């Protein structure tokens, strides 16, 4: 196992009956990288990600995350990763502080640690005035940023983001990506799925999934050259149309 590879996937497959939702994908993700996982809706991105975070077991193939095998060591993986799902997933009926305390708690952080972390986090996000308000009353953009910060609370080695910027305005998206860069600079590997092609340009490397297979994988720059495309949107269209 190369220490530089935090995710290693080889021939990973998930069958639903006769249908291969994920069809023998193979790739590596390096430490500290922002890895874009692209694909149209239904291409198999979320299914692939669920196998990597240990809540869905592969039909065949192997994969390791943070050095642990997804099939036999799922519990160890869970301690080392953060996850933010497509659906906004904090508790609306808990306050900002209570949410932070709760999620810190289930990752086993000490009370003191949580207190320090939440103070920093609330200040960084500028949530001082609403720290004791119910999360349900916050605008979506704030919730998304809070949700991302919460997924980083336990300093995971890798953070998985499943379409994190769905439905938020361009300014918030921009701020969101700044947060992603900051996390990457601090050494966290970021694995992000998206279908906003402009966001793909922000990634260090991107893979593009079509019908369960990875059809392209490289830096955005080289992909554009390879497909003689002006931007990532073009690359994607050329691939998706075959």
């Amino acid at each position, binding site marked *: 196992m190369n220490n530089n590879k935090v995710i290693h996937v080889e021939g990973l497959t998930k069958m639903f009956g006769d249908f291969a939702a994920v069809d023998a994908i193979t790739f590596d993700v390096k430490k500290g990288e922002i890895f874009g996982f692209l694909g149209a809706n239904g291409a198999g991105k979320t299914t692939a990600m669920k196998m990597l975070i240990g809540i869905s077991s592969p039909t065949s193939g192997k994969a390791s995350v943070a050095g642990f095998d997804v099939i036999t060591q799922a519990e160890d993986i*869970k301690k080392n990763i953060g996850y933010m799902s497509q659906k906004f*997933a904090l508790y*609306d009926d808990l306050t900002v502080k*209570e949410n932070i305390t709760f999620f810190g708690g*289930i990752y086993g952080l000490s009370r003191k640690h949580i207190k320090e972390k939440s103070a920093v986090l609330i200040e960084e996000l500028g949530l001082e005035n609403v720290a004791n308000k*119910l999360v349900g009353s916050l605008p979506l953009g704030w919730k998304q940023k809070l949700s991302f910060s919460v997924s980083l609370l336990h300093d995971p080695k890798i953070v998985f983001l499943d379409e994190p910027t769905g439905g938020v305005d361009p300014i918030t998206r921009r701020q969101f990506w700044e947060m992603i860069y900051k996390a990457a600079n601090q050494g966290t590997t970021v694995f992000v799925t998206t279908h906003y092609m402009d966001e793909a340009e922000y990634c260090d490397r991107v893979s593009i999934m079509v019908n369960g297979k990875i059809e392209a994988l490289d830096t955005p720059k080289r992909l554009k050259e390879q497909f003689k495309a002006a931007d990532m949107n073009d690359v994607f269209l050329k691939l998706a149309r075959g």
Partner: protein
Amino acid sequence: MKRFIGFIKKEFYHIFRDRRSLFILFGMPVAQILLFGFAITNEINNVDIAILDHSKDATTKEIINKIAASKYFSINQFIEKESDIEVVFKKGKVKAVLNFEKDFSKNLIKENHANIQVITDATDPNTANTISNYVNAILQNYLKEQNKSLTAAYQIVPKTRMVYNPELKSVYMFVPGVMTIILMLVSAMMTSISITREKELGTMEILLVSPLKPIQVIIGKVFPYIFLSIINAIVIIVLSIFIFKMPVQGSLFLLGMESVLFIITALALGILISTISATQQTAMMISLMGLMLPVILLSGFIFPITSMPLPLQVISHIIPAKWFIIIIKAIMLKGVGLQYIWKETLILLGMAVFFIALSVKKYKIRLE
């Protein structure tokens, strides 16, 4: 352990910040027990009756006075002709008419035989039955008083004694039933809703990706409801003791333990429901249709199981509530100990183990 406490704290926030669930948790038990205790009853009190007296002699007057003096009946009106009977019934207030034949006294003395027709409004068959029984009882009583001086050659005198509930208070029958319903509702419905809610919101996924084990998530979700159900059971018992003077003959400890056993069975059912339903609404519908209806109809709470058709009697055996009602009735009213109800307890225990095993298995399958 610290994780677990944090989890439970969060559950309590959910419960106490949601007015709807607070109402179901604490309003419902009190409302139901008061409703069943006061409003819904099998006893009759001050039923309006009408009298059609064709003879108007000393005997009929005596009988009428006796009936009027009882707390069961109040005489609404005297009518004069047969055709009025239908009229008073149609008005709806009068539930029974007593029709004394002509020359009542004379017939009684001369022929040792006189007739009263008791006509009851059987749109409500139970009440009609009760009314005619009560009227009969009053007449028998009257006859016995009159015949004291005479001694018949042979006489069979049934002396009935109603044990365990000598006053035949219907609240004694409702309290165990209501307690069962409430515990089922709180335990099964509320937990299934609270688990499916996390699924619907997407937070369940986050919890499963966290280092918490699925079993910890489940226990964390159900623990607050165990606690609240126990409080509910206590509230119901206290209300029935102090407001309805319901006796608890047996051991309170045993009653408590049996209640906890039933609560756990119901919780396992709730978890099971949550594994098969994707939304809160589905969970609620399944809980109401699949659990509440059988509890109300087939557990022997309202309708006696022995008078059901055989297939329904068989079905009633697989309803945990049936066994729990038998158990708590035995403890509260008969004051028996475990040696008399160990069979029922064992059945309930078996069901609890079965449902827990099944729901754990189901839950795992869902996670693939």
